[in-house]
């Protein structure tokens, strides 16, 4: 064999191994789930409760993330100040934090005896082991995905657009609403889809901070875990649903964030 001839086939082999390894579990879920037991499992009120709770909790978390995260991302993208890099790193920390650590941290902060949770409890509000706690955990782990996407999108807006808006008589608030947010919308939506994907799959932080109580804090991933030993078919069916949800979210993130939108924006300048 001539020198160097082996390299290209080796690359292809590596890709084949990677693809097989990464898709095999997903394929296995669908191979082992017949449409019959999928529908059967979805008849189980516990499974439906888990899916319904996942939908409500993730949407509520996303609403909080967008409301607070959008102005945060805009500030980080358009202003420079001392400690900017540090603030960005702190905001990104939950991305690399082990979910179990996030759960323990949330308990220590917002739990019944936590440094802030104590005072919340005095006011008669409970977060830990309640549905509200699920929303808190999801918000914590998913927020950085949105903020990063939105920040990049805001930063890539041509500064002269924002300045033009000001010279045309628009206040900074109006410039934010009429120019910055619409221009950054594709990137923000892509970040939102990723954040949603992360929230739907959240397991560790939720389990530790909110527990796994049916109908109250048991989201779909927790329901899967609970049924593993007793009802593997139900676990498979729920998994299949989550694969479809996650795949759809990833695809929409790709479509929204793909180069075409950015190219169109750039061409418009």
């Amino acid at each position, binding site marked *: 064999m001539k020198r160097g001839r082996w390299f290209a086939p080796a690359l292809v082999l590596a890709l084949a191994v990677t693809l097989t390894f990464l898709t095999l579990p997903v394929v296995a879920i669908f191979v082992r789930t017949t449409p019959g037991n999928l529908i059967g499992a979805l008849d189980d009120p516990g499974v439906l409760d888990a899916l319904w709770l996942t939908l409500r909790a993730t949407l509520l978390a996303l609403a909080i993330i967008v409301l607070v995260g959008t102005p945060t991302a805009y500030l980080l993208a358009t202003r420079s100040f001392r400690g900017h890099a540090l603030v960005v790193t702190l905001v990104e920390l939950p991305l690399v934090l082990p979910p179990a650590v996030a759960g323990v941290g949330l308990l220590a902060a917002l739990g019944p005896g936590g440094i802030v949770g104590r005072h919340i409890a005095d006011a008669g509000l409970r977060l830990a082991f309640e549905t509200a706690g699920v929303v808190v955990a999801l918000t914590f782990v998913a927020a950085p995905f949105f903020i990063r996407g939105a920040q990049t999108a805001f930063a890539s807006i041509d500064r002269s657009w924002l300045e033009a808006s000001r010279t045309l008589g*628009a*206040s900074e608030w109006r410039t934010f609403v009429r120019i910055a947010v619409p221009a950054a919308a594709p990137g923000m939506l892509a970040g939102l889809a990723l954040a949603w994907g992360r929230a739907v799959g959240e397991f560790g932080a939720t389990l530790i901070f909110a527990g796994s109580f049916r109908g109250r804090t048991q989201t779909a991933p927790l329901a899967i875990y609970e049924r593993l030993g007793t009802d593997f078919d139900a676990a498979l069916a729920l998994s299949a649903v989550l694969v479809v949800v996650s795949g759809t979210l990833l695809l929409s993130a790709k479509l929204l964030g793909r180069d075409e939108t950015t190219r169109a924006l750039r061409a418009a300048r």
Partner: protein
Amino acid sequence: MLRVEARTTLGSPSSATNGGFTLDAVLEAPAGTCLALAGPSGAGKSTLLRIAAGLLRPAHGRVECGDEVWLDTATNHELAPEQRRCGYVFQDYALFGHMPVWQNVAYGLRGATKRADRRRRAVEMLERFGIHDLADARPRTLSGGERQRVALARALATEPRALLLDEPLSALDARTRASASRELAAVLRESGVPALLVTHDFTEAAVLGDRVAVIDGGRIVQQGTAGELAAAPASAFVADFTGAVVLTGVAHAGEGDLTVVELDGGGVATSTDRRTGPVALSVHPWEIALEPAGEHVEGSMQNRLEAEVLTVTQVGNRVRVGLASPQPLVAEITSAALDGLHLAPGVRVAATWKATATRLVSL
């Protein structure tokens, strides 16, 4: 009258040695006139424009427009950009890509709240520029010339108190530029408000500005009409900037009232200007005539330098001839004059011009 006065350090303070420099300038544009601010890139032209618009706050400065004070750092008084009402045309036009053309123009409309009203007024404004059929187009589908008109229409729709234009023609190709320049000159004449226009091109400044201020290194080095600047440049920089040929040498008094300049690198030139010592000599390319080398014809041309042709470039009905003599020279001659000379790179010729067309500036 728009008056901008600013003294501030540009670039980050820590980089004062490399790139950071002090901007120190006063500009005045009376109502209905255009002051062209001309200079090389990095001279501080756009910075002055941004200070006027309120997009940048100088360490020390005062901006007045008519009877309004927009900025006075001495009393800490500052109006936000949106309160100043100045029509700003950005270098790349900064049209909002997510809005159709008419919404771009309607963006700064004052007093109209109903959508139909806003659209009608925006289209009226577009009609003035002959592009009302583009009302529903997206900016990215427009040509450079169309974008420039939309940007102007958008700036004028706010009924601005002053117009600020940042290199408004630089994004256009050479063919569009001539017509866009004529249109822009007409708009500036009709607007009736003071205008400040930034350009790095002296010709553009001469065409569009009633007066021209040349800025270099953050300072205004000369102000006047374009004709004044070309006829009597205050420095070698201004002479070079106006497009004149600039040669350096040492001057001493010669016969009669003439000054003789021993040119660096060889050769002698005479001028009617009186200077002694190191000088920059400037002469406009169209003052320089070419004749075959060797055969000197007695005439009124006191200056004659033997030179080698480097380049021959047709510009419209004229020909620009680049020469090495040994300092570089440029002559502009008519195509008719070209024919008898057999000009081509490498041919030796003699460049001649009058002593009266020769300006001297002390170095």
